[in-house]
């Protein structure tokens, strides 16, 4: 048995990515509408509304603070939900993977393609948020153009973990555990709405283990036009979770499908 299962991209993982892109294109209009509509409501309601009372947070308007947090957390959600609900649908009830496994593709190619697709979706929906934030005057620098690559990496990170859940899930209800026990606490604690430094010291070091906090730390200065710090660490944490998630998910999914 092989120790590591590595994907092929040409004619393999990319073919899976193209499959998902084609499905997305069919429903492009409503999904773009949602991509723009949701952050618009959030940023207008919370960023402007709440921002009036808060004023500045960490030397930037609250709208900017919140927009950069939402960029990161929406990538977490987009990638996680795609890697759980959509991937599970293709893997189990729809038997799409069964059909694909009758071609030269292997499980590792399919999952690599899924992760690339999840990350792409994060760039699409994150791009919409960034545009809305810019429109509302929350983006202060051209450095914000570095945000999409960070969203792509964030997407890879969370899709890797989501794929593990899909490989383990006996049904859709299973994902509630992960959402409630992992994603929601991370959303609340990772500095999306308020600075992590306002948490108790013990909790702060715990938060440093959460990938979302690192995504926020990368994105926020890029949106606000402030200097970045600890870039290699943040990148390494996001990539580390993504790679580990991928390798574990490949193993688990092979065990589930190749029986």
């Amino acid at each position: 048995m092989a120790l590591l299962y590595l994907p092929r991209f040409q004619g393999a993982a990319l073919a899976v990515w193209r499959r998902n892109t084609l499905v997305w294109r069919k429903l492009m209009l409503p999904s773009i509408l949602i991509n723009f509509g949701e952050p618009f409501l959030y940023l207008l309601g919370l960023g402007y509304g709440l921002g009036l009372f808060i004023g500045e947070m960490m030397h930037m308007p609250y709208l900017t603070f919140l927009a950069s947090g939402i960029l990161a957390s929406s990538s977490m959600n987009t990638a996680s939900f795609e890697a759980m609900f959509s991937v599970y649908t293709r893997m189990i009830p729809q038997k799409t993977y069964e059909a694909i496994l009758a071609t030269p593709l292997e499980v590792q190619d399919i999952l690599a393609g899924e992760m690339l697709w999840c990350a792409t979706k994060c760039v699409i929906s994150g791009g919409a948020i960034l545009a809305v934030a810019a429109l509302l005057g929350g983006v202060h620098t051209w450095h914000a153009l570095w945000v999409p690559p960070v969203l792509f990496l964030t997407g890879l990170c969370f899709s890797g973990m989501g794929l593990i859940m899909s490989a383990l899930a006996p049904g859709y209800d299973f994902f509630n555990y992960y959402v409630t026990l992992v994603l929601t606490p991370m959303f609340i604690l990772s500095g999306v709405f308020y600075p992590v430094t306002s948490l108790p010291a013990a909790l702060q070091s715990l938060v440093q283990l959460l990938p979302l906090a690192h995504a926020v730390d990368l994105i926020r200065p890029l949106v606000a036009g402030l200097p970045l710090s600890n870039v290699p660490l943040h990148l390494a944490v996001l990539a580390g979770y993504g790679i580990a998630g991928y390798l574990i998910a490949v193993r688990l999914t092979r065990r589930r499908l190749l029986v």
Partner: protein
Amino acid sequence: MPAVVEIKGLIKRYDSREVVRGIDLNVPAGRCFGLLGPNGAGKTTTLRLLLGQSPVNGGEIRVFGLPIPQAGRAVRARTGIVPQADNLDPDFTVAENLRVYGRYFGIPATTLDARIRELLAFVDLTDRADARIATLSGGMKRRLTIARSLINDPELVVLDEPTTGLDPQVRHMIWGRLRDLRQSGKTLLLTTHYMEEAERLCDELIIMDQGRILEQGTPAALIRKHAEPEVIEVRGEERLARQALAAAGEGRFEAVGDTYYYYTRDARAVVKQLEGMPGLTFLHRPANLEDVFLKLTGRELRD
């Protein structure tokens, strides 16, 4: 003729249950080879194993001379697979299903367009090219699945119960297409439990039960070997039937449900006798593969 598929001592276990128990098998190139057996005989498992879709617990598999599972990718690139249950992509139209599937094989777009046109014509779905999968009938889905399995112009086509659940029109159409494929030089490996299908299509077949191979040969040879040439099926009152058949002398007698089977070398005398018994209905026919199958695998129900 070189063998396209060579299997030696193949073993597969699920937990402690052995579902494939030491199978040896050679599928020669350019032939239609049938795997027959009741449900649970290990046919589908054997197919999955030989395509590298399931880990092997013992024995050796070579397809196109390449070892499985190591060369799974290369083997599947040259193989077409029709699964037992359709798994077409419901998010796409008929033509898109073929296009997306072709990309998994890395087929260039221009080649793919031409092949899609050919294959849609081959399975008579040209006018449904833009239909969604949900709007297709069972027979259309099956035909599309067969077209999909040919997208890579495979040398070997593996079909798991290709015509189960289809009406006679579609079944005959598919049989015709499978004969076309064989004519064009492809090797076919199919499972079925329709004896008529096996008899019409297969040059050679094996009969499996409980993970083992019971018998192998051409349909005609198997019938010659295992069944008397003539069969009489009798329905009606048991006492009368027994009486009529007992008078016939040599021959094999079997009661299944409300039907009495009589296997013999020469049925003339019995036929004459039965014609004079209005209380019984009977059918006089040549022995077929089903007689062999039931003789070898028994008549009790399987799940």
